[in-house]
């Protein structure tokens, strides 16, 4: 998925200026509140029309016409941060069926897609539950299921882990890994730099209307960039950097997880 020369505004305030990037693999969008992450996600999904620039999926340019948006939404789905912005139906299975029905699929296939999406998100047992009786985490999963049922090539997620407890975050990440195994490309917006480092291959830091894009471990080690974006270095990189200053580990290492940090420490300064 690619964006070229995107200018975008939100409520008449310019937010993004000449943003271009190519998204492959697991990508995380990072930035401060109000930096434009959500606007960028909405531009990618077609929900927000940019002032200039283009969005391409598989080389095909997004056209903001009825047919163009319909074709785009078959390939790209956005899960909003607040699940209540997406769950409209009284029960979970009915809500998940909404998207596939809009694709014009026969009912038998819609039934299959609903069952598949609920199973992938591990909420089959919630199929007949009313949405207003679900917990926040369950509503998040239901909202994701609604997007997954459309079998998009690209799934955009706006702060999917916000409001979830640590176990909920682990379960959600495991679910997202399952979606990837089914061939879906994932783009996630988050503030959680530790999560970003452990999960993403690529990172895009949104700051000052622009986007800096590159390998996650490299970008998240750039203290100046992170400071401008009101972020901080993830703890594995911070710890590794401080230990390197003390000569306890070789410099330049970029562990991404607790296990990698332990390995680095076990290897010692000689490595």
């Amino acid at each position, binding site marked *: 998925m690619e964006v070229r020369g995107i200018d975008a505004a939100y409520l008449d305030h310019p937010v993004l200026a000449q943003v271009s990037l190519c998204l492959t693999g697991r990508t995380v969008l990072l930035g401060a509140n109000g930096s434009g992450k959500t606007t960028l996600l909405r531009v990618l999904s077609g929900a927000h029309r940019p002032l200039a620039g283009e969005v391409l999926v598989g080389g095909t340019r997004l056209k903001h016409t009825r047919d163009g948006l319909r074709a785009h939404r078959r390939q790209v789905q956005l899960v909003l941060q607040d699940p209540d912005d997406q769950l409209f139906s*009284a029960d979970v299975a009915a809500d998940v069926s909404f998207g596939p029905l*809009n694709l014009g699929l026969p009912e038998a296939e819609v039934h299959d897609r609903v069952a598949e999406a609920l199973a992938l998100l591990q909420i089959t047992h919630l199929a007949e539950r009313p949405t207003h009786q679900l917990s926040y985490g369950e509503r998040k999963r239901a909202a994701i299921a609604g997007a997954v049922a459309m079998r998009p090539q690209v799934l955009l997620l706006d702060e999917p882990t916000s409001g979830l407890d640590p176990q909920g975050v682990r379960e959600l990440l495991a679910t997202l890994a399952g979606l990837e195994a089914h061939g879906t490309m994932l783009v996630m917006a988050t503030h959680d730099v530790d999560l970003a480092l452990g999960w993403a291959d690529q990172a895009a830091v949104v700051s000052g209307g622009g986007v800096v894009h590159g390998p996650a471990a490299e970008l998240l080690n750039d203290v100046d960039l992170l400071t401008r974006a009101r972020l901080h270095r993830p703890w594995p990189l911070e710890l590794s950097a401080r230990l390197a200053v003390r000569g306890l580990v070789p410099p330049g290492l970029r562990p991404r997880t607790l296990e990698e940090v332990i390995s680095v420490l076990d290897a010692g300064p000689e490595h």
Partner: protein
Amino acid sequence: MAGPAVDRAAWSSPWRQRSVGDKALLCFGLLAVAIAAPQWPVAVAVLLIASVLALGPAGIRPQLWARSVAAPYTFIGIGAVSVLFAVGAAPTDALWQAGPVSVSAQTVRDGFLLLCRGFAGTAAVLLLATTTPIVDLLQALRRWRIPDPLLEVASLTYRLLFLLSAMTGTIRASQEARLGYDGLRRGYRSLGTLLSSTLLRSWDQARRMEDGLAGRGYEGALRTLARPKRHSARFVAGSVGLLVVLVVLAVLPWR
């Protein structure tokens, strides 16, 4: 948010799987008998039947049933009490009189009949309401050719009511925590802010939901899969048989 007792009962009732048409035949039949029967014993019979069905095979928990009937029964009770009193010239069978206001044997009979019919009719309607979530009712209405836009407005209103109710509760708690209801004047001011805030937020929530739906391909119709319900010829036959018995009892001369 848990929601009102009627809603919670409807989602958990084993009768939820039954055809809405089957249940409507039974419940509206009971309602018609309750309000048309000239004698109070038939109305009481309807009340007992509806209550036993609700607490028995329909699987409604007694606490939920009690909470569901509390408000309507209280309202009917107040109405029945007001029927006891007549204003004007004292009737010959007056049991009590104070000036132009009197209570007579006839007004007592009228009040009692109103009470019995009201309770029975309410129980019959609540039997349907506590076994049929709104989403099932709307699907049935769609099959019965009620226009889609009306049903979609009802469906979205239902969903938004829960969201706004939770939001209002949170705002109220926040106001209370900051002494917003400490005193009558302050309380009215806080209440006014609460109501205006809820109105603005309801607009905002509706707009955000519209955005969310657009992203899922919404193009003017909120179509979702309908879950097939179980139609039972035995249930229908039993309902018809029961209603016939009640109608016969209703038309029999009782004296």
